[in-house]
């Protein structure tokens, strides 16, 4: 899409466009499975990192650093922190798995959210982390190992159809998408076109259907993507509500965000738009993320 196609959909559109053209800052979170924030942050600051903690959360924007890449430190190699955009933490935080939960992460690699969920679960319960790509599973396994995550099982399969042989308390479907929200980070050139979004939307619906099948009665499912187009977000979630009988939960979120999109071109998403969460780059200086919390 041309970014102009979103002019009426995104509030403060000029600010949005300006932010999309700026480089994206790095963020990190402390891996509390291995070290506390109080121990690690002063250590990094002593080395010359300038970190801005966000809203009292375990989320730090890196304002300045003494190394070229935020991972070029002993502490990173020891698994004391994970470099992760703040927007990407939110799906896991909203799913909010507790110690002992039985969790499925359907499209897990490279494990930014798997490792955060393991932290929230204090390495207890179970995370079944699935992905389809061998290469990305290698990255997932490497991150799980570096962070010391010991409650995860990695499996390989197609999230549109794979049977997982169990029902789960909580499911994260951080779906493959056209990734418009990561263009700031990657400075990609080609924006996806309408047929890309339509094709992706079909795959995402299949994944959501398979996710619903594996969710326990009363279980929670978080659907998220890092793209802005509503066909990959509101449209998929509306399918979940209308066709799969999922309920969309009302979420209180103290972080600057926008609600879902009511309509775009000939499509209307009235049934779900009010309860969806949109994180835009110009709100907290992050990438982009769209999230829905669903209940069976």
């Amino acid at each position, binding site marked *: 899409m041309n970014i102009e196609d979103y002019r009426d959909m995104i509030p403060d559109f000029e600010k949005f466009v300006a932010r999309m053209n700026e480089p994206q800052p790095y963020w990190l979170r402390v891996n509390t499975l291995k070290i506390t924030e109080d121990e690690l942050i002063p250590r990094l600051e002593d080395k010359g990192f300038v970190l801005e903690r966000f809203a009292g959360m375990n989320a730090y924007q890196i304002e300045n650093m003494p190394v070229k890449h935020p991972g070029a430190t*002993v502490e990173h190699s020891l698994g004391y922190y994970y470099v992760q955009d703040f927007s990407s933490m939110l799906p896991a935080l909203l799913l909010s798995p507790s110690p002992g939960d039985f969790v499925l992460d359907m499209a897990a690699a490279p494990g930014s959210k798997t490792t955060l969920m393991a932290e929230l679960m204090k*390495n207890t319960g179970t995370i079944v982390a699935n992905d389809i790509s061998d290469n990305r599973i290698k990255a997932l396994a490497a991150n799980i190992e570096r962070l010391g995550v010991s409650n995860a099982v990695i499996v390989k399969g197609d999230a549109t159809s794979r049977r997982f042989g169990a029902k789960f308390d909580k499911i994260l479907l951080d779906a493959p998408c056209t990734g418009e929200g990561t263009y700031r980070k990657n400075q990609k050139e080609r924006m996806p076109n309408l047929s890309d979004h339509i094709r992706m939307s079909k795959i995402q619906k299949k994944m959501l259907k398979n996710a619903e099948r594996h969710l326990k009665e009363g279980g929670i499912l978080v659907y998220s993507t890092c793209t802005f187009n509503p066909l990959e977000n509101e449209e998929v979630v509306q399918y979940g509500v209308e066709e799969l009988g999922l309920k969309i939960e009302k979420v209180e979120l103290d972080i600057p965000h926008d609600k879902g999109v009511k309509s775009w071109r000939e499509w209307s998403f009235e049934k779900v738009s009010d309860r969806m969460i949109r994180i835009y780059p110009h709100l907290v200086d992050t990438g982009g993320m769209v999230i829905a919390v669903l209940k069976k």
Partner: protein
Amino acid sequence: MQFSKNNSYRDYFIERFGIGKEIEKYDFYEFAQSVWAYSGEYYEDKKIEVMGIRALRIKKVYKPTTAFLRIIGRYATKNVISLSSNDGMKFLKGENIDGVCGNNRGYVVVKSGSDVLGCGLCAGKLVSQIPKKYRIEETWL
């Protein structure tokens, strides 16, 4: 081939490193010449690629992994070598360290301050067993 549970490997960590009840939160699974430490609930699936963290490689003797020692090593009470921060950096670059092993022989937990750096082998000198993926580079801090 599947991951099969065998908790007798706990004894290795108890006997070699004096680790106490902290080891009990892990179940141990054998798979492909390795032993995996897993703190989750039992989950059955025909195609498991990874289960928890690789804890041991089964060779002539058991070889503990750096990744698992980095979790459990803080509870070790024997066969532990503590390095100065200078030597610690060298060790993390994959260099061997003279004069620190004393009477120790075999695989040890290597620490520096409160950090568990990983697995070393005492064979006269301390031979770094840090795998390439965890070695730090010259320009790193």
